[in-house]
């Protein structure tokens, strides 16, 4: 059993939890994820590690309620437990590895977080800050009410730019527009990390290809085991089959086949559900790019 020690509502339908998970907390690094299962009959739900405390032996997750399982998860309270909580899974972010630190220090890095993507971006920016690298962060959301972690992010980043699609807070526009604006001002970046809805990552990659900024994305396809056993999470990267759970979740965004990855997300949707997915992609998932529908 893995007890929930703290629960906090960050924004509409976005919930943070600190979960006691000693083994995961001792070995995890930014960029990795866990799989949580609520109870005997529950689904195995992959969630990014958003922070960790090796002393308190906790792992922080941020969950957006979008379907049956995440809604059930949101009903858990402090003191309740997950029956299963396994990890860390996947490869740590390359930028957040001690052995790459000398190289990383030479880079001017810009993070683009779309919607919930702020949660997984935060531990990376924090890790870099603690290791003497200060990064730029663009965090975008559809509207003001969905924003979270602005102060936390400001405390660890060199600069934070907040965008909203509807202009209710910060820059009126999308993450891609903000990046373009910064580059137009003469800012130079050697590395971009984009985390958010697939469609947002796709459009960030389209832009950064033009701008010639190498870009890392974090892919979150449908998963089952998370250990390379089922192949549900397979993607095409650089024309090769990769399993996101063991080879990723981070990949070179300029090599990912996003259209295929997005199509595969619809596997377990009924026709009706797929329509809902299109709607929801426009709704919950769409912080920071605003290209929704433009792709369909």
């Amino acid at each position, binding site marked *: 059993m893995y007890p929930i020690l703290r629960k906090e509502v960050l924004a509409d339908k976005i919930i943070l939890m600190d979960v006691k998970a000693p*083994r*995961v907390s*001792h*070995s995890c690094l930014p960029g990795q994820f866990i799989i949580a*299962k609520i109870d005997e*009959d*529950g*689904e*195995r739900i992959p969630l990014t590690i958003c922070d960790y405390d090796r002393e308190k032996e906790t792992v922080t997750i941020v969950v957006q309620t979008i379907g*049956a*399982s995440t809604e*059930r998860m949101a009903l858990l309270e402090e003191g309740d437990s997950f*029956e*299963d*909580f*396994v*990890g*860390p*899974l996947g490869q740590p972010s390359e930028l957040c590895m001690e052995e790459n630190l000398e190289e990383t220090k030479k880079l001017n890095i810009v993070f683009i977080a779309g919607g919930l993507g702020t949660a997984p971006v935060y531990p990376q920016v924090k890790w870099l800050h603690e290791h003497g690298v200060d990064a730029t962060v663009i965090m975008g959301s559809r509207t003001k009410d969905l924003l979270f972690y602005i102060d936390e992010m400001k405390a660890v980043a060199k600069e934070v730019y907040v965008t909203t699609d509807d202009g209710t807070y910060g820059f009126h526009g999308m993450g891609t527009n903000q990046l373009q604006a910064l580059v137009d001002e003469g800012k130079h970046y050697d590395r971009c990390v984009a985390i958010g809805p697939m469609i947002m990552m796709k459009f960030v990659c389209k832009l950064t290809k033009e701008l010639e900024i190498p870009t890392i994305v974090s892919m979150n396809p449908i998963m*089952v*085991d998370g*250990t*390379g*056993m*089922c*192949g*549900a999470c*397979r993607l*095409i990267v650089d024309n090769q*089959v990769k399993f996101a759970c*063991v080879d990723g979740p981070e990949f070179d965004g300029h090599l990912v086949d996003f259209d*295929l990855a997005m*199509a*595969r997300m*619809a*596997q*377990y949707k009924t026709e009706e559900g797929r329509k809902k997915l299109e709607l929801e992609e426009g709704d919950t998932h769409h912080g920071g790019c605003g290209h929704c529908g433009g792709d369909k």
Partner: protein
Amino acid sequence: MDGFVRVPISEQEPKVRATNFEEVCLGYTEEEAVKEAERCLNCKNPRCVGGCPVSINIPAFIQEVKNRNFEKAYEIISESSALPAVCGRVCPQENQCEGQCVRGIKGDAVAIGKLERFVADWAREHGIKPHSDAPKNGHKVAVIGSGPAGLACAGDLARLGYDVTIFEALHKTGGVLVYGIPEFRLPKDKVVAAEVENVKNLGVKIETNVIIGKSITIDELMEEEGFEAVFIGSGAGLPRFMGIPGEQALGVFSANEYLTRNNLMKAFKDLDTPISRGKKVVVVGGGNVAMDAARTALRLGAEVHIVYRRGEEELPARAEEVHHAKEEGVIFDLLQNPVEILTDDKNQVTGIRIIKMELGEPDASGRRSPIEIPGSEYDMDCDTVIMSLGTSPNPLISSTTVGMEVNRRGCIVAQEETGATTKNAVYAGGDAVTGAATVILAMGAGKTAAKGIDEYFKNH
């Protein structure tokens, strides 16, 4: 009945069982078992024993069944096997003990597997459990993986007095026995969970949700958590795909994914984990895994075709599974091979393009390899394709363990007689060493390694 024909076994009717997940074979009653045991000739040179990978004293246990000493029969089997209720159900007996039985020369071989299953079920139903009175010796051993290899190794080590902990990556114990082999062949609560309980009763601790190589490495287990020896029984779980066009489409699954959703996550009970209930399903492959996937799809309501590139003779699955699959209505399209998966504009599978094959001359290994017949392609409609082309060991452990060799196929290199790997105090066995094989071989390797580990401690 003359001695040439075996006592028939009751099974669920094919039409009925094709719509449920209850066990197909109902097993012998006491009377039937005794009667079948009477057919054994109690040979002086029992050929059956030579065919058993773990050399169970087959005539001896069968004589005890004949004399209704079922508990004694169980003890005899338990000397060589840790999982008789499982092996009695899933061993390919026709290639092993029963394939060698002299009775088989003129008539039916003795139903050794069914008798083994009867004895193990009888013992479980009568509360007979393995126990150990060996004094604890205080040495800590870690066992990685809770499949047949890990369970057998852990059980034997506990019986010798070792302090054993099993680390399992998934949330449930049993390896392929829980995630791969379906309920209708191997009941999970009744049989598998009972075997796991037996191992726990011997004092073995089990920690689920620990992925060795990720949550903690073997080197850390030994340096930081005080484990003096390690057994790796992590199986061969990595699925293969064909590499043909359309394989990434919606509706194409690995057999592992399909079976895991259904068996481990119990999707057939309509719990939280979804499964795609196809209308027409094509399963590619001819092994046990393919049969299981096909019969699962059938039970979920689909018309099912098995497409296999060789012929009936060459099907690697157990004979009983092929027979059951046919009875239930699975259609076999043999000597055929997919070349492309057809899709619509939403990337959903709409069909499969298949080429016909013929068998060529036997190659160096004596196996006749299938050759495509040019121009014989045809298209079959379907909405789901399940790839069942074999699996290989997962590199998670080997890539994070310093000084342990693997071969070119990613299998861990281990000595056959002891299970010792090239890393000191680290042993391995089962599918992780051999590549995908059988339950009995994995179990046997686990037992061999337990002996090897015991020797290691005696010499240190």
